[in-house]
C-alpha cells in the first residue's frame, strides 16, 4: 500500500478531497445567490496538500493542533470540522461556530485540533509556536502544524514566530504553500529565492520541497516531519508546490494570469484527478468505491445546506456579550434606550 495507507484510509482521504471540493462548489452556488456574506475563497487545485498534511497528524480529542488559512478548508474537515459549520460561517448564521462574529474558516475547536486564523497574515506562526511550546513544557507528544502562504512568508510575524520556534526546538511543522500567487503578486516579487525551502533553511531547521498536488508525497513528508517533531527534534518546514487556480477570491477575474497556465494545471495537475488515477491504476480501490463516496458527499452537502440555509442571522443584541469574561457584557449605548 502506498505510504502504508490501508485502503480504508485511502478512501477516507478521497472522501475529504471530494468533500472539500464539493463543499466549495456549493459555497459558490450560495455566493451567486448572494447567500454568502462577504468574500468567498477557493482552494481549487490545492485540496490535496490541505487534506494530506492534516491526515498525517494524530487526530482525535486533544491530539495534534493545526492552524488553517482561508485555503485550508480541507485540513479543517479532516480534523473534524463539519460542513454545516462552514456553511453557517459563510452565511453568518446565528448557529455558526462564531455566532456570526467572524468569517468563513475563522473559527476553532482546540479539542478537535484546529485554531482559527485572523486575517493579519503571519500572526498565526507565533501563536502556534506558543501552542507547541505548551506541548514541550508539558512533555505531551503532540505537534502544532501551521500553514503559511508564499506571500505571507514576507511578514515580520512569520519570521519572528518561526525563528522563536526554531531556537526553542518546538514540536512544530510549517507547511509553506507555494501556490504561485499572493493575490496578484507572483513569487519573484515576493522573495528572491527560488524555493521557500531555501528561505526556511536560514532558520536552522530542515526544509523540504514536495509536489503539493501529490497527495502521497505531502502525506509522507508531513508524517515524517510530525513524527520527528514529536520525538523532540524540533521544527520542520515543508514546502508544497501547488497552484491557486481561482482568483484570490471570487471577485478576482485573474486578468493578470496567463489563461493557458490555469488550463494546464487543471488538465495535467489536478490533485484529486491525480489521486484517483493512481488509486485506480494501482487497483487500490474500485471506481464504485469512489462514486459511492461522491454520492455520499453530495448527500451530506445537500443535507447540511438544507439544514442551515434558511436559519436566521444572529439576534442583534447578541453582539454585546463576551468581550471579557468579566465584566460579562459591553454596555448598551445610552441613546438606544431613550
Amino acid at each position, binding site marked *: 500500500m502506498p505510504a502504508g495507507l490501508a485502503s480504508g484510509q485511502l478512501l477516507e482521504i478521497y472522501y475529504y478531497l471530494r468533500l472539500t471540493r464539493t463543499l466549495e462548489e456549493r459555497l459558490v452556488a450560495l455566493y451567486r445567490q448572494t447567500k454568502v*456574506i*462577504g468574500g468567498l475563497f477557493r482552494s481549487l487545485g490545492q485540496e490535496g496538500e490541505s487534506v494530506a498534511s492534516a491526515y498525517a497528524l494524530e487526530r482525535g480529542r486533544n491530539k495534534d493542533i493545526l492552524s488553517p488559512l482561508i485555503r485550508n478548508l480541507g485540513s479543517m474537515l479532516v480534523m473534524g470540522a463539519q460542513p454545516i459549520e462552514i456553511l453557517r460561517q459563510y452565511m*453568518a*448564521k*446565528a448557529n455558526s461556530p*462564531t*455566532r*456570526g*462574529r*467572524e*468569517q468563513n474558516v*475563522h473559527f476553532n475547536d482546540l479539542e478537535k485540533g484546529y485554531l482559527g486564523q*485572523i*486575517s*493579519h*497574515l*503571519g500572526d498565526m506562526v507565533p501563536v502556534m509556536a506558543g501552542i507547541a511550546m505548551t506541548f514541550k513544557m508539558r512533555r505531551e507528544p503532540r505537534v502544532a502544524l501551521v500553514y503559511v502562504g508564499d*506571500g*505571507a512568508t*514576507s*511578514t*515580520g*510575524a512569520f519570521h519572528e514566530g518561526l525563528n522563536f520556534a526554531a531556537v526553542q526546538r518546538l514540536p512544530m511543522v510549517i507547511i509553506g504553500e507555494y501556490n504561485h500567487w*499572493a*493575490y*496578484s*503578486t507572483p513569487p519573484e*516579487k*515576493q*522573495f528572491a529565492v527560488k524555493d521557500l525551502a531555501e528561505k526556511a533553511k536560514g532558520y536552522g531547521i530542515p526544509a523540504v520541497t514536495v509536489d503539493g498536488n501529490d497527495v502521497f508525497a505531502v502525506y509522507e513528508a508531513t508524517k515524517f516531519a510530525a513524527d520527528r517533531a514529536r520525538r523532540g527534534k524540533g521544527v520542520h518546514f515543508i514546502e508544497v508546490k501547488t497552484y491557486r487556480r481561482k482568483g484570490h477570491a471570487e471577485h478576482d477575474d485573474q486578468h*493578470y494570469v496567463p489563461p493557458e497556465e490555469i488550463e494546464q494545471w487543471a488538465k495535467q495537475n489536478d490533485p484529486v484527478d491525480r489521486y484517483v488515477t493512481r488509486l485506480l491504476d494501482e487497483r487500490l480501490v474500485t471506481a464504485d468505491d469512489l462514486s459511492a463516496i461522491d454520492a455520499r458527499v453530495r448527500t451530506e452537502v445537500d443535507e447540511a445546506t438544507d439544514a442551515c440555509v434558511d436559519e436566521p*442571522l*444572529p*439576534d*442583534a*443584541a*447578541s*453582539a*454585546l456579550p463576551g*468581550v471579557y469574561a468579566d465584566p460579562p457584557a*459591553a*454596555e*448598551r*449605548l*445610552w*441613546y*438606544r434606550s*431613550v
Partner: protein
Amino acid sequence: MAEITFLEALRQGLWEEMERDERVFILGEDVGIYGGAFKVTDGFAKRFGEARVIDTPIAEAAIVGAAAGAAHMGLRPVAEMQFIDFISCAYDMLTNYVATARYRAGLSTPIVVRGPCGGYVRGGPFHSQNPEAAFLHTPGLKIVYPSTVRDAKGLIKASIRDEDPVLYLEHKWLYRRIKDQLPEGDEIITPIGKARTAREGKHLSIITYGATVWKSLEAADKLEKEDGLSVEVVDLRTLLPMDDAAIVATVQKTNKVLIVHEDTRTGGIAGEITARINEQAFEWLDGPIMRVTAHDVPLPYAPTLEDFVLPQTDDIVKAARWLANY
C-alpha cells in the same frame, strides 16, 4: 461636468500629482498591474511604469519604512495599505520612526500612507477598522479623513504636497456610494487642518467625520422635518492637527454638541474633542457634550450584528432629540 465617485476623485488626485511631480511614486501590495484591491491605482502602472508603481512583498513595516527612507532623499512616496487594518503591522515604524523624524533628527519625511477603512460593508473585525484614535497621540503625524468627493481629491493632493507624514483614511462605504461633479480645469486642494461646515444650523451641532457625516446629514434632515430642529453638521476632515477654531465656533453658535463617530466609544477621538471644548468653550455649553459611536466590541461580521454595533442614522436622531430637549 460628469459625475464621479469618491473613489474616482481620489484616483484623479493621485493621478494628477503623479503627472505633476515625478518625485511622487506609489508602493504597496498589488498596486501595480492589478491596480489595488479596490482599483484605486488602476491603470497607474501602465501610465507611469512599474518603477513608479511598485508591487511590494506583504510587509507593511517595510512599505512604510522604505517610503520614509525615500522621503528623506527627496521623493514623495504614497504607500497603500491594502486594508487600513494592516497598518497595525507598521504601527512601530509609523509612530516611532516616521512621526518623530523631524523633531528628533531634523529629517523631513513627506510620505502619505493611505488605505480603505471603515465598516457598514460586512467586512468583519479585520477589514472594517477605524485606526485614527490609535494614531491621535502621535505628534509629528497628520491624519486626514475625507467624506466628500471634492475632499477625497483635495486632501490626497494636499497630503502629497505636505512636508510632513500624512495618514489618509478613505472609507470603503463612500468609495462608490458618494458621487458628485467636480469643476474641470481648476485645481482642487483641500487645506489640511481645516474643518468644513457640511450643514448650517442653529439649535445643535453635530461634530463628525468620514462615513458618519452622511448619516448625520440624513439625521439632520429628519430632525428638521419631524422636529423643526436646525442642526449644524461639522465635518472635521482633518483629525490631526484638529481645527479648534471651527469646533469652538460651532459650539458658540448652537451651544449644544453631539459628537458622532464610527469608532468604538471608549478611546475614540470624541474624547479629545470633548476635552478641547471643555477647555475652550465650557461657558458656551447649554448641555453635556454627548457621543454617538460604535459599541465597545470588535466589529462583528453578520449584518444584524454589525448594524447593531455601528452608529445608525436613527441613533443620531434619538441622541440629538434628547440633547435638543435638554
